[in-house]
């Protein structure tokens, strides 16, 4: 699905990613863990194509195409979805209108006709249930006045609506209470198919109790320093990040 080779990226001339290698295949869930400042969010932003992040070296292939050559909206239309750590508010634009525009843009890209209003609303109804999103929220402005938990659920709702191939969840668990966490995780698990892949970025093991990863990678100082299976996350939880820091802080880049 996605192959990342020796990816280097900087912000304001400061190198944050220093040679990331990662391969994610369809049907797999990869967790990326790491302490603050290790480059987790930078990785998700670079993959989604955010301005201000300069890729200085390396390549990323997404379904056989060069991802780094694509505009952010093209990446999205090609099936890359980023569930934001901090979803932004867009006042005056209803969630429904926003999603309808997004969905139809994608359909146009795929050479399909726009969705009929009736079918669209049926889809909204179905997917809303998945994340137990209040029907009223769909008609409110995008994320405006939503609680932290509602915002995160809204991200998963959008994900469900747009049906992407690769989903990157950027600290989706931050700011969620246990119940909301379970709702979000259930949504993700229900949406899981053998054609989709997930990259789950998180600080904590607790999300991984609900979304069980096939692989766990530890990101530190802009590189993946350790990879393993779900047990690695438990080990990390037990030992804390300090062990990792000690072990790898003097590794030359």
């Amino acid at each position: 699905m996605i192959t990342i080779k020796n990816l280097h990226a900087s912000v304001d001339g400061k190198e944050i990613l220093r040679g990331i290698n990662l391969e994610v295949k369809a049907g797999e869930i990869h967790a990326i863990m790491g302490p603050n400042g290790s480059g987790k969010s930078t990785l998700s932003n670079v993959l989604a194509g955010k301005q201000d992040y300069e890729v200085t070296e390396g390549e990323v292939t997404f379904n056989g195409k060069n991802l780094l050559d694509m505009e952010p909206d093209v990446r999205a239309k090609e099936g890359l979805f980023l569930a934001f750590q901090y979803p932004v508010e867009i006042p005056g634009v209803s969630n429904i209108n926003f999603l309808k525009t997004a969905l139809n843009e994608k359909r146009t890209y795929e050479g399909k006709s726009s969705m009929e209003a009736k079918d669209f609303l049926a889809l909204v109804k179905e997917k809303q249930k998945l994340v137990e999103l209040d029907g009223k929220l769909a008609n409110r402005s995008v994320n405006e006045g939503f609680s932290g938990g509602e915002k995160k659920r809204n991200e998963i709702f959008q994900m469900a609506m747009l049906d992407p191939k690769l989903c990157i969840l950027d600290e989706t668990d931050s700011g969620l209470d246990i119940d909301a966490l379970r709702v979000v995780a259930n949504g993700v698990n229900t949406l899981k198919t053998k054609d989709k892949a997930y990259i789950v970025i998180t600080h904590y093991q607790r999300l991984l109790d609900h979304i069980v990863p096939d692989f766990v990678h530890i990101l530190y100082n802009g590189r993946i320093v350790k990879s393993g299976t779900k047990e690695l996350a438990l080990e990390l939880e037990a030992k804390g990040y300090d062990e990792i820091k000690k072990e790898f802080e003097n590794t030359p880049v």
Partner: protein
Amino acid sequence: MGNEILEQHIQSDYKWGFITDIDTETFAPGLNENVIHALSKKKNEPEWMLEYRLKAYKAWLTMKEPDHWAHVHYPKIDFNNISYYSAPKKKTELASLDEVDPELLKTFEKLGISLEEQKRLTGVSSNIAVDAVFDSVSVKTTFRETLLEKGVIFCSFSEAVQEHPELIKKYMGMVVPPTDNYYAALNAAVFSDGSFCYIPKGVRCPMELSTYFRINASGTGQFERTLIVADEGSYVSYLEGCTAPQRDENQLHAAVVEIIAHKDAEVKYSTVQNWYPGDKDGKGGIYNFVTKRGICSGDNSKISWTQVETGSAITWKYPSVILKGNNSIGEFYSVAVTNNKQEADTGTKMIHIGKNTRSTIISKGISAGFSNNSYRGLVQIRKGATNARNFSQCDSLLMGDKCGAHTFPYIEIKDKTAIVEHEATTSKIGEDQLFYCKQRGLDTEKAVGLIVNGYCKEVLNKLPMEFAVEAQKLLAVSLEGSVG
């Protein structure tokens, strides 16, 4: 990346910039008493109208062109370099006076305005009466007979002077006297045409009335007058649209709009102003110096201005309401967009005189490119205007870092019982918002359009349906390429 998109779009953006090739009768440039005599004669005006014009002209001569106070910049206008009358020549072969030159019909058709009553426009219902003004003359007013059945008079200003002199004499200049300001005086002296409408007592106007202004001839100015009188207990919704060809020269548009709302009457006036804004370097474009004012003369009357301003090189415009009647209501909803080198200084005046008068001001400014966008508004509560209320909200949205947004609120309160609220915000169109939209598959233009329309929603919601759709598209087009 941003600049490339910007350059690609700007030149091709203005879709209304074509020129109609038509024989015209145009006065030589220049302004003096002879020109006014000639103009009045051309229109076969009664003596009192000529005198009105000459009086205004003499007053104008003694006045000084306003400078300094408005936040706009333009070279001094040479008023002797403007032609004050240009009209398409009537073709002799036309069978009746009511017939319109097909070339003109085509022009308005191209602008999306149908002058054939039975014909539906694309996306616009046929339930709108149109007065079509081409340069200095009204070429056709539709649905006149249908309206007359209800007693509603809707015709060109020139015809009203001939057919309803008593109404014109009574109301013209009542809200905007000829000496009100420099451009109002100029207009009173040289106005060429415009629309007149009168809604009789207790009548709810059965359709929306509208005027479409088109400047075509070069080297001319357009000086039209609109007069709307809503008699006791009546209601009318009025729409105004305007476009002009794309030219390197600047053209002056100095209009006057007067609204009179009697007791229990309501007038809703909506404008989508789309004059040619000039090119990306600020060359060409219309100078839009307009005086618009209404008076709620009777108790419980209401006047509501809604404007979407996307065009003109320079906009200088303050649709205002004098709240004279007790319990009267004034509203001003505005979206003003400036891009490239456009400058807009626009806002409103709410003058509270009657008791329990209420006014609402919602202004949304959007600046992009190298433009300057100012809100200037006055809320005046006179002595004796007990329990007057005003709420003002002025928001500015900046796109890019080369443009400016300014707010100049003036508040004068002479009555202790007044409650006046003013809120103002300035925000930048967020990179984060744009990125969020793009990550969901919207390209830059779509994303900007969506965000801006969301920002203007409170105002766009006030527009009649047909206008709202047009305004939304226009906003997107006006801002195309303004964010990279």
